[in-house]
């Protein structure tokens, strides 16, 4: 006979605790990775924009836009950088990496702005754009667009790995707890079966030879108590005798 009902709540509790751990760990991971990665991308974007700006000074002063474009083309090969454009102090687009053209959203924006901006460019994706002034802005501004979809992909991947690991731990934990609960429930099942036999008043010799009576634990004590009570009736000294073995 199996003891199912007694441990149902225990099993549910274990599952709930592990589930809670998975969810809270994932949420914390999501927050941490998202915050840190986004911040790191933004800082990197600023550094890249500043480096392009610093590298562009001589080229701009030499009015060599082909070399400037070549420089920009090299930077845009860096993973995560999706576009770069350089505007003059008057807002003219001196070099850029857009194909087939500069998006209207960018054409309409403030070319002097260097503050991080979240951009959604139709057909291109979502970006965080940072700027850096060239020669304190008197020679123009460099704008670098970092691909947020790449950031999202990295966040998703990091969280996916975390959740995958915790899920495996959850499954193993639940299976182990079920096994342990069943292990604990087995002697109780034997005791219950034995009590039922006693109640049915089955053959006395048969009930005196059950293995459960030989157990040296609480289940064994209870089995012997049940047998004694069944034979002698409930008396105060009976319990004392059973407890003393």
């Amino acid at each position, binding site marked *: 006979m199996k003891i199912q009902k007694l441990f149902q709540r225990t099993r549910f509790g274990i599952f709930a605790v592990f589930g809670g751990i998975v969810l809270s760990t994932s949420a914390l991971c999501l927050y941490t990775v998202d915050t840190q990665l986004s911040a*790191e991308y933004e800082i990197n974007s600023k550094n890249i924009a500043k480096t392009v700006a610093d590298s562009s000074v001589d080229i701009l002063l030499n009015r060599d*836009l*082909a070399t400037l474009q*070549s420089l920009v*083309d*090299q*930077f845009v090969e860096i993973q995560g950088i999706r576009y770069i454009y350089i505007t003059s102090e008057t807002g003219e687009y001196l070099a850029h990496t857009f194909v087939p*053209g500069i998006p209207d959203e960018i054409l309409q924006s403030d070319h002097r702005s260097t503050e991080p901006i979240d951009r959604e460019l139709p057909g291109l994706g979502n970006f965080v754009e940072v700027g850096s002034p060239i020669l304190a802005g008197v020679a123009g501004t460099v704008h670098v667009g970092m691909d947020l979809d790449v950031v999202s992909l990295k966040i998703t991947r990091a969280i996916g790995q975390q959740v995958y690991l915790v899920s495996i731990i959850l499954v193993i934990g639940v299976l182990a707890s079920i096994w342990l609960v069943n292990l604990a429930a087995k002697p109780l099942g034997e005791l219950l079966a034995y009590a039922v036999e006693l109640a049915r008043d089955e053959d006395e010799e048969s009930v005196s030879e059950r293995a459960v009576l030989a157990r040296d634990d609480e289940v064994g004590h209870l089995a012997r108590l049940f047998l004694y009570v069944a034979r002698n009736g409930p008396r105060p000294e009976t319990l004392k005798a059973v407890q003393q073995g």
Partner: protein
Amino acid sequence: MLTRKDLIRYALAAIVLAPLERALGGAESYFRQADSGAAESNLDGASFDGEIVLGVSAAFSGPSRGLGTELYRGASAFFSRVNESGGINGRRIALKMYDDGYQPDPCVENTMKLMLEDQVFLLFGYVGTPTVTRVLPLLKKFQDENIFMFFPFTGAQPQRQPPYGDFAFNLRASYAQETAGLVNNFVRIGKERIAVFYQADAYGRSGWAGVRAALRPHGLRIAGEATYSRGAPFTGTMRRQVEILKASAPDAVICIGAYAACAAFARDAVDLGLEVPIANLSFVGSENMLKLLVEGREDGEAYTRLLVNSQVVPSYEDLSLPAVREYRELMAHYDPQVPPKLVKEEYAPFPNSFGSLEGFLNAKLLAEIIRRLEGQVDRARLEEAVFSVRDFDLGVGERVSFGPDRRQGLQTVYYTVVEDGRFVPLEDWQAKFG
């Protein structure tokens, strides 16, 4: 996520010169003159010993392979005649060739090999702005070795002005001259709204800057602009670019690109009703462009009737020019082909083309410069030999001169339109496009 490693890599890429200088630091000892007795292998495994080896990195594969192939064919025709005649001062000319597919990184790698491993005498016949622009810092790095680049197939400014202008010699007119000529002619006939379709790289930007500069004296600005990615094939669509430019209501469009993309643009422009003159620069590869637009089409004329291509060499049909006659004779005689090891994709060369004529003229002038070394094949004397070229008759009607402040041989820009399935000189802009 960008790691510190990525940032370091980025920082290295940012300053083109510095990393190259560091990477190549101490490499001076690798250099030897080609006449130092070093035995070098050419593509066929033959010895370079006693030959003057010229290093070539050009597009022999990819959508722009026609440019490198045609340029090589013209140069090879002339050098074949030189070698057959006993060489220059008893030295034969050999070409050490690599394919860069018109991509900057392979071009830089090839140039490193040519300079450090192959120890070529000079660099010759390079193709394209994005490639040449990336190689120029190498020349500056090795300026003590007097490695010069001769006659690249690009009209961009970086090899014509500081800080790299001293390391290259140009024969052809610049893109600034080509675009200025196109703009001035368009404005003269009342076409003031000029839009630009350009390759999204240094070449496109160079042409864009030329158009912008040429419009400024007229008080005009670029009416509209659209870009495409380098290597775009003819089979791709340029409809979005056409729509962008069409919205700017241009009177004319100047294209700064290679033949496959520019032909696709011309096709889609006509299909979408953008019926304005479409100009192309010399780099486009006129014959290849024409072939793409008309081959297998009954309505090919519709796509070509508004084309006007600027050229930096005269028409190869102009038999009044001695150089053209010589070019046609040698092309017919030798019919040079790109070495099989460099052929990755099929390409059917043209018997004659503007590209191969330019290659021919490049080779002819370079041979004259080497001849002026008078047997002392020494890089240190190269610049002096170049500057000794004064009023040299190359056979194209315009005399060639070089000097410390004049590192471009030819200044003339020619304009051609399509008639009867071929490019012919444009005589009257007003009558054609007015």
